């Protein structure tokens, strides 16, 4: 994610300034280089900055909580949260909650993707399909999944189906539009060439358009994963006996803010893991696509 070059940027600029005036010049250009848009920085510096940011957040949190600037009823200390996190996993079967949330996400995500990807590809590829369905999808995209919960209870009941439906509702429509963009951006020449090589419409679709779309699709699935977590919490708000969202909400009810924060951090961590997995998948599936982030 962070592009770096092995040598320090400041060193490199300094190298252009020969002679005795180097110290002063080097100092000036060090600053000026850091301020230069798109100038790469060294990998160690990048790592230091990234950790620095997380440490800074931790430090702020510590000051506010240990320093009792905020009641620990509302913001527990880092150590209390860590302890709670340990307790949750070690003794309270939190792993089960994590799993049931993850399972809901995976099912909903798979269902959404299974429909959104083909539909999106069709929208981006066939003007008729686009004209037919895109405006509807664009309108529904704005309709909040949360508002459908009462209807979903009626239609799907109160078990897993309903929770999965809420996530699907939140993920499906924007994902469809993103995938439509991907397939609309496939170069027309790639298709034209296939026709001149004797491909039927069907072959152009399956053997050119689809493979050309996959890398972009995987990228957008990664982005959509973030939304899924948001809607999961909304879904678990209404009815659930398990799940991270359920734990967070239950804990909120019993003034257990350690658990609330522990749950939120768990989701953040899971998110980063899913991001990383998607990036790995991308690299594995598309060895030919280099230089993507």
């Amino acid at each position: 994610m962070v592009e770096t070059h092995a040598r320090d940027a400041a060193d490199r600029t300094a190298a252009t300034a020969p002679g005795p005036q180097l110290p002063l010049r080097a100092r000036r250009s060090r600053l000026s280089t850091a301020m230069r848009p798109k100038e790469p920085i060294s990998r160690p510096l990048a790592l230091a900055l990234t950790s620095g940011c997380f440490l800074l957040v931790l430090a702020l949190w510590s000051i506010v909580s240990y320093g009792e600037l905020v009641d620990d009823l509302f913001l527990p200390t880092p150590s209390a949260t860590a302890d709670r996190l340990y307790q949750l996993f070690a003794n309270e079967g939190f792993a089960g909650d994590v799993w049931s949330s993850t399972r809901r996400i995976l099912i909903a995500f798979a269902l959404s993707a299974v429909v959104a990807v083909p539909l999106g590809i069709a929208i981006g590829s066939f003007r008729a399909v686009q004209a037919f369905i895109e405006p509807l999808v664009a309108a529904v995209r704005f309709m909040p999944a949360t508002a459908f919960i009462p209807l979903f209870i009626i239609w799907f009941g109160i078990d897993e189906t309903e929770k999965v439906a809420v996530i699907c509702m939140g993920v499906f429509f924007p994902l469809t539009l993103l995938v439509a963009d991907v397939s609309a951006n496939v170069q027309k020449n790639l298709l034209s060439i296939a026709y001149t090589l004797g491909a039927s419409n069907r072959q152009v679709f399956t053997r050119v358009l689809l493979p050309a779309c996959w890398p972009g699709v995987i990228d957008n699935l990664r982005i959509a994963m973030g939304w899924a977590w948001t809607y999961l919490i909304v879904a678990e708000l209404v009815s659930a006996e398990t799940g991270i969202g359920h734990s967070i909400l239950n804990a909120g009810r019993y003034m257990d803010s350690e658990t609330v924060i522990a749950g939120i951090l768990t989701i953040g961590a899971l998110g980063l893991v899913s991001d990383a997995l998607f990036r790995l998948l991308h690299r594995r599936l598309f060895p030919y696509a280099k230089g993507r982030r």
Partner: protein
Amino acid sequence: MGAIQIDRVTKVYNADRRDVLALDDVSLTIPDGEFGCIVGGSGCGKSTLLNVIAGLEPPTEGAALVGGRPVTGPGPDRGMVFQSYTLYPWLRVRENVEFGPSLAGTPAKERHGQSDELLAQMGLSEFADAYPSELSGGMQQRVAIVRAIANDPDVLLMDEPFGALDALTRSGAQRFLTNLWEQRRRTIAFVTHDIDEAVFLADRVYVMSPRPGRLRKEVVIDLPRSRDPEVLTTPEFADYKREILELIHETAAETRA
């Protein structure tokens, strides 16, 4: 086999409510087995003409005929090579070359034999398992040409295939193409904006003029085959080049007036 005939073709694009007359009543013939080059300034309809022959764009009026049959859509009898690299990035070089035959259902064994042979002939054997992104631009264009050839089309349509190559790579690619053509003698319609390239490659050069796109003149290049780069510095070559350049300048002047 196939001569290419363009019969009174007019092509109007409907862009943003404004109609663009891209081709205005163009007729020309590239005889069977000849190498035709189409030159002209930007926007004179060269690409449009090629697309009409390929069947990728229907003409508004008139018709294109290949081997005497009217063109109604794209097909494997007319191979195409574009300027920008259009190899399939997810396929290895060999798979790109075999793409056409595999569409037609040619058995893998037969395909491999053919692609091995072609790649070897073209000095690309060692890259058979590479992805396009691992090749230089020149090599990519060579693969694109091999891919078109592997499908054994009656005619080859090439739209500035060497436009993005540097001088050295380009002259290599030109030699590669002429060798190939001398072996196989397919009809070729080759679009370029490099006059040197046109004169060096062609049996006939078709000079077009822009706005609206019209055929200005057909120049028969009567230079002996096989040509090598030495021909570039002969006075005959210089004469052809001057003639064509003047034609183009004239058309430009007319258009501006």
